[in-house]
């Protein structure tokens, strides 16, 4: 049977790893390759790496870094950041990355999604949507949470599925780095319409939070940043991840469907 996925998400800025709070205050937490090596040892389910500078600086993805990450990774890798063209996407796949993620391009050039999906297969086409709670529901943002997109979240997700995405990652801006739990109401809203694998990011502060997500939604991707790079109440930088045993227990306690 298929298991829920527990996924560390790493943010890259100026070639270093950072962790943000509500998409701000990037705090340096270490070297990406070193982190991947540790996550290999810890046998993580998969890894998401997002270069949060690339689109902002309007530059090419850092192929050298991506290649190094892909070589090192013993688990599936999803890369996102600065991908605007099919050629760029194709280059990144050839470096050994299993999945690529787009955000800004999904909004600015949705045709890119159908093109990648037709040639490379939808299973490798991931869209990350950064969302923020609004008065009436949820708004989509691009450019690291600075630019609001004038689209209805649900309608846009339906459209993305028609274009051929293989996975949807939803990142909650308001609770990024807050570590008090996922926005389960948002997941509920999306679960009704999402037909592709869904991964939730933003807010996880403990394994209990991940357990709560799995308990309610079964097979789902539970992604987290702070939880897997910080330890203790003073948030000391320490790469960590549940052991196989802890993960088994977490799933067994919560996934009653299995």
């Amino acid at each position, binding site marked *: 049977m*298929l*298991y*829920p*996925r527990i996924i560390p998400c790493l943010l890259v800025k100026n070639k270093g790893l950072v962790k943000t709070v509500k998409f701000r205050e990037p705090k340096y937490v270490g070297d990406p390759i070193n982190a991947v090596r540790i996550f290999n040892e810890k046998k993580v*389910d998969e890894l998401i790496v997002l270069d949060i500078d690339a689109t902002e600086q309007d530059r090419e993805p850092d192929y050298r870094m991506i290649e190094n990450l*892909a*070589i090192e*990774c*013993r688990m599936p890798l999803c890369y996102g950041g600065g991908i605007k063209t099919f050629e760029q996407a194709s280059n990144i796949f050839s470096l050994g990355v299993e999945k690529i993620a787009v955000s800004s391009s999904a909004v600015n050039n949705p045709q890119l999604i159908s093109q990648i999906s037709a040639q490379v*297969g939808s299973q490798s086409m991931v869209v990350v949507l950064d969302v923020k709670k609004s008065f009436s529901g949820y708004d989509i943002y691009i450019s690291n949470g600075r630019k609001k997109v004038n689209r209805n979240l649900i309608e846009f997700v339906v459209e993305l599925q028609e274009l051929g995405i293989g996975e949807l990652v939803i990142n909650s801006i308001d609770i990024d780095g807050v570590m008090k739990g996922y926005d389960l109401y948002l997941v509920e809203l999306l679960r009704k319409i999402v037909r592709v694998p869904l991964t939730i990011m933003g807010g996880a502060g403990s394994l209990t939070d991940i357990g709560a997500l799995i308990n309610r939604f079964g097979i789902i991707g539970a992604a987290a940043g702070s939880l897997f790079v910080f330890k203790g109440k003073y948030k000391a930088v320490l790469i960590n991840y549940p052991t196989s045993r802890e993960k088994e227990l977490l799933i067994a306690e919560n996934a009653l469907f299995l």
Partner: protein
Amino acid sequence: MIAIVDYGVGNIRAFANIYSSLGISFKIASKLSDFDSVTKIILPGVGAFDYAMSRLHLSGLRDKLNELVLERKMPVLGVCVGMQMLARSSEEGTLSGLGWIDGEVKKFDSSLLNQGLNIPHMGWNNIVLSKYNKITKDLETAPRFYFLHSYYFCCSCADDVVAITEYGDKFASVVNSDNVYGIQCHPEKSHNNGITLLKNFWEL
């Protein structure tokens, strides 16, 4: 020496990295002369069926691979789309496959959605051995591998199925016929079990 076929599709470096750490000699093979002194072949693959088949065709390696696999009976392991390429055809495309194992590639039925299962099949799932095969020896109990696919291999001959995986229905996740092996999941991205399987392939 193992040849990891480089035709511009698939995660060549990940295989290389694992074999390199195991101290097993390998070569990233992109031209005919790369196949000299090779004793085993890995055919990786990521992407759409037609895209992968046409890239393989363009690489100019197809005849060479046919000769090594069909005439010289060299062991070959197709991975993910590389496995699907072993079939005669795929519902994902119009090009014909290599036809090294009798079967066709089908799309997961959209009725999976009614069971709360999404397409693609993405994540860690168990493989259940249907019979003994050297390629699946020494795996952990209830071994898990990483899957990422919307299409699956449907064998014409039940005897070619080495392991099955359950996703709504059951499908063949590891197949073998004679010297031809295929695996739907990604052993190069499946931690210990994947490494064991790749080591087993070398030791065949």
